């Protein structure tokens, strides 16, 4: 492992040290060298084109619908050459959670931060619990961890179909194809679906009708399966989306044999559906790639992404930062950073210390600090690392050259990294570290999965690393992640049965009184490494004298919705849009719908519900916390 840009070197045992020199983290001392087009070059080019060509449209789409939360996109579209010359993603929502959590009892963080996002509500509650456990030195009993895994697997069972059929699916439906890509319709009517024997749609046109919003059978079935998975979740959590059962040190679920049996019988209904889902999202790319190769460029960007891992090994997880690389490696989904398709590390400490957050183009004032020069293990930390973060929100005018969004620029090793549930597929395919399972196998280049028998027979499926990374592959990988997550749910359920057999019933390590006594009075740091429906989710916190003194959330959509960084590199949405060709008929500029740009954006599954930062009003920060769900920071 080595960083390409950050001034950090590693010794043979993986311990990191800061390379010398004055101000090693300075923008000019550590400049990423992967910048392809600089901001100035981009601007010059647009100026030249505008001078030559009247068909450059300056368009702002606000709001973008069929995503969660508030996102707008500004583009400069060259309709003559069918190109998006420039793109700016804007997270348009800020909520001030920071001061709300500030100075609070750490026990409040679970239920308060849960409200950061209601689209994947459970994930924040869990992530907060992990951060608190690390800070307070609490280790949940195995059954507590197993129940959390079950909840979080089931939550993915809601999340993935919601996206694929309610949010993204309509973009490939008959209603859109006939209006935006009419040339594809006759083709779809004669194109036999290779997976017709699995999903039942003979021709692509039949499948597209089924994707129609509200009236299509796949849309409706998807919605209903989100409900089934929510039922599974609430057996354990009480309610949805915000779980009511997560406690520091475990869960408070009263686990009976009925709980497990109900979980089992409901989960059992999912596997047939998972087969159909993968079949649908395998056929869609096949059809589009065949119809026009340019579809491979829709939403494309380098396969550069990050994930903090998901679903703990109940016997390995001990809640400590000291051992996080060991327990991280044992997760059902391995943590990892992928640069240009290659897995460069699976160590949580590397992932943590490579993290920075910049605010040059966001509605905040920069105020990074050096209060933590290293992490608790002595690895160097950047002044822009969440534990060092000092951010002052400042609503202001929109200016594409200056500030234009509530989302910060999150970078890892100063690169724009993408987050998604599909990052788990990409990392697990390569890591070969996932636990031994009858159902899932990491081959080093693919993920092999055995679908248990339902009403239709069992089947082996294999997800391969794609050659290109684009909108279609995101959706395909998400459909496979659906199965992956449900298999983790099944494995975790078996683990719960096993613990039950052994007479194990304890789901939390502390009673409420013990918890109250365990709140430390000295200064502590904590970090929850977790995941969401969109991948990566990390909470950093600091507490002192038994109260929270800093709380920072880095969400997947903050990574993806990032604006430009200090070096002018666009965030993943922006980059993906600029790489998207306009395939629709452009002969009449009036009828330009920008469908491919929307396919690109939606394939990320944007989820923007919240943005929060501290603001004391007088410019001086007394205390600052940041809980943000998705999108903003």
């Amino acid at each position: 492992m080595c960083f390409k840009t950050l001034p950090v070197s590693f010794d043979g045992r993986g311990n990191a040290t800061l390379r010398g020199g004055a101000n090693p983290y300075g923008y000019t001392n550590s400049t990423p060298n992967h910048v392809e087009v600089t901001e100035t070059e981009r601007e010059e080019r647009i100026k030249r084109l505008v001078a030559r060509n009247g068909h450059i449209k300056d368009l702002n789409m606000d709001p973008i619908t069929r995503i969660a939360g508030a996102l707008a996109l500004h583009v400069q579209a060259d309709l003559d050459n069918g190109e998006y010359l420039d793109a700016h993603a804007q997270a348009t929502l800020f909520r001030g959670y920071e001061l709300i959590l500030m100075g609070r009892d750490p026990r409040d963080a679970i239920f308060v931060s849960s409200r950061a996002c209601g689209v994947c509500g459970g994930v924040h509650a869990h992530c907060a619990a992990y951060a608190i456990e690390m800070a307070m030195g609490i280790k949940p009993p195995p059954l507590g961890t197993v129940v959390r895994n079950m909840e979080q697997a089931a939550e993915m069972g809601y999340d993935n179909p919601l996206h694929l059929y309610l949010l993204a699916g309509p973009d490939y439906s008959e209603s859109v194809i006939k209006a935006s890509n009419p040339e594809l319709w006759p083709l779809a009517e004669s194109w036999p679906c290779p997976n017709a024997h699995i999903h039942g749609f003979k021709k692509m046109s039949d499948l597209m009708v089924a994707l129609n919003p509200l009236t299509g059978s796949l849309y409706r079935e998807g919605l209903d399966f989100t409900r089934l998975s929510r039922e599974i979740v609430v057996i354990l959590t009480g309610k949805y989306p915000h779980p009511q059962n997560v406690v520091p040190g475990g869960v408070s679920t009263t686990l009976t044999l009925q709980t497990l049996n109900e979980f089992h019988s409901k989960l059992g209904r999912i596997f047939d559906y998972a087969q159909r889902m993968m079949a649908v999202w395998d056929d869609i790319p096949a059809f589009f790639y065949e119809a026009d190769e340019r579809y491979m460029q829709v939403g494309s960007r380098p396969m550069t992404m990050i994930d903090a891992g998901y679903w703990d090994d109940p016997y390995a997880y001990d809640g400590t930062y000291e051992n996080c690389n060991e327990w991280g490696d044992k997760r059902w989904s391995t943590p990892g950073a992928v640069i240009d398709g290659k897995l460069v590390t699976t160590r949580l400490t590397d992932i943590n210390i490579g993290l920075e957050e910049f605010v040059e183009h966001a509605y905040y004032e920069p105020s990074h600090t050096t209060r933590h020069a290293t992490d608790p293990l002595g690895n160097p930390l950047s002044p822009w690392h969440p534990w060092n973060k000092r951010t002052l929100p400042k609503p202001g005018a929109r200016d594409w050259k200056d500030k234009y969004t509530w989302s910060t620029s999150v970078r890892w090793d100063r690169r724009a990294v993408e987050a998604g549930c599909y990052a788990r597929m990409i990392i697990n395919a390569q890591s070969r570290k996932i636990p031994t399972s009858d159902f899932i196998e990491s081959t080093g280049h693919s993920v092999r999965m055995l679908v248990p028998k339902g009403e239709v027979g069992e089947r082996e499926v294999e997800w391969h690393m794609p050659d290109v990374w684009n909108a279609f592959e995101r959706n395909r990988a998400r459909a496979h992640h659906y199965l992956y997550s449900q298999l983790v749910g099944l494995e975790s359920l078996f683990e719960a049965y096993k613990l039950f057999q052994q007479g194990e019933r304890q789901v939390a390590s502390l009673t409420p009184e013990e918890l109250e006594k365990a709140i430390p009075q000295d200064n502590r740091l904590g970090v929850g490494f977790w995941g969401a429906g969109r991948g990566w989710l990390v909470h950093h916190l600091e507490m002192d004298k038994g109260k929270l003194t800093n709380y920072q959330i880095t969400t997947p959509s903050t990574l993806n919705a990032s604006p430009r960084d200090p070096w002018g590199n666009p965030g993943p949405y922006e980059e993906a849009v600029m790489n998207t060709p306009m395939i629709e008929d452009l002969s009449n500029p009036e009828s330009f719908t920008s469908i491919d740009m929307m396919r690109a954006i939606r394939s990320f599954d944007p989820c923007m519900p919240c943005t929060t930062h501290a603001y004391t009003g007088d410019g001086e920060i007394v205390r600052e916390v940041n809980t943000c769900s998705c999108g903003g920071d």
Partner: protein
Amino acid sequence: MIDYHNQHRDLIPGSPAQKLLEGLGRAVGFHDLDHIGAFGMPTGAYMEDMLAPAAIATAATRFGPLEKVHAFWFAGASCDGCSVAATGATNPTVESMMLGAHPGIPRVILHHPVINMESGAHYMRAAEQAMEGTLNAPYVVILEGSIMDELLAFDQGGYWSAAGEEPWGKGGELRPVSTTEWVARLSINAAAMVAIGTCATWGGIPSAEGNPTGAMSLMDFLGKDYRSVLGVPIVNIPGCPPIGDNFTETIAAVCYFLQGFGPLPEFDELGRPAWLFGETVHRRCVRGAYYEEGQFAHEFGDPECLVELGCWGPVVNCNITSRGAVRGIGGCMNAGAACIGCTMPGFPDKFTPFYKRPPGSLASTTVSRMTGSLIRPLRKFSNNNLNREVRWDKTGEVTSGFGREKSDPGMLAEVTHHFYDKMRRFNDNATNDGAAWGKIGDDGGDGRHPEQARGFKSGESSKKAMPGRR
């Protein structure tokens, strides 16, 4: 073109809504859709028109005068959890309302950012028409998330939460329009204003102690005297998240009333549907009997009453234990989770820190511990008796191979149960034995197997059989 600036006069004087519109200044004209063309319209049609063929019904099958109603869904300081909760509803479902697929419900034309096909300026068109008064049907506004003080951000040239843009900036420039502004403007012509979720109903977590955005509830924003054009004050459906069914059912109930076949739905003094929020959640809690018997969970995961783990159920208006969270399943205490009062105006600050027993519970748990210690053994005693067939009492043997039942209840128990049995039959005057009622013959007189009938011949209970026909 109309300058909507003067709209603030139609709002309650002195309300934050009125002050906001007054402070925002000019609002002239809307988007130029000609300039925008099909940008953001991938189906070439508005959602309303796309769904119309599937959704339109005749007056006969919709049972009433109302053909359709628009519903504008806005998200303020929200987490989108209320939207998620609403899509989880099954009684009725959101999609059945949108498709008019539910007899009696007019077709609901929902303008929801998570559902609609049109984006950008096209998505905002219906809201513009609602402002202009040119929309083709009455509309309701549904707010999720709290209202933030946008004047604070506007003064710095920005916003906290925006939904679309309009040419209301300096010199007709497009400027982001905040959710708060939309809600204020649309409240003027709305048929009803509905707040969903605790953020919108009472401010919720975004308005908790220490918040920097000045977040508040919809009621606080529009003012006590606010009335919709139908004369209705703000309707509140709280919960964090709310139960999806509580929301869709309330909307449906109002529709049934407007269609002329449902009763007038009753709302309580805080605008909550009274039939849903009239009871404390404790009253229908699945663990309520543990409370009654004085048994309390000590560790997380214990099956007993959760009050000492921090449950506020006895003083919280909520129906989740009886209604469930999704399709009747779940519920906080059902799963083992203590109530933190997420439906209440005092949430969260009056319930924190969490996982700590409510101080006020001490008196009542002490009392229930005392009475419980008396009642529990008595109940256990009766329960033992009822766990025995009458035949086992006679034969003195329990035939279950699991052998969990004690075969001999013991002398004292037998006497007591006998006495109890007498009490139970105190008013029963039938003293004839079974033969007198024609019950005992070769076939038992009532079709029973002779052996079965004979079994009762000598038994006490056959003498005390229910009086029957002769």
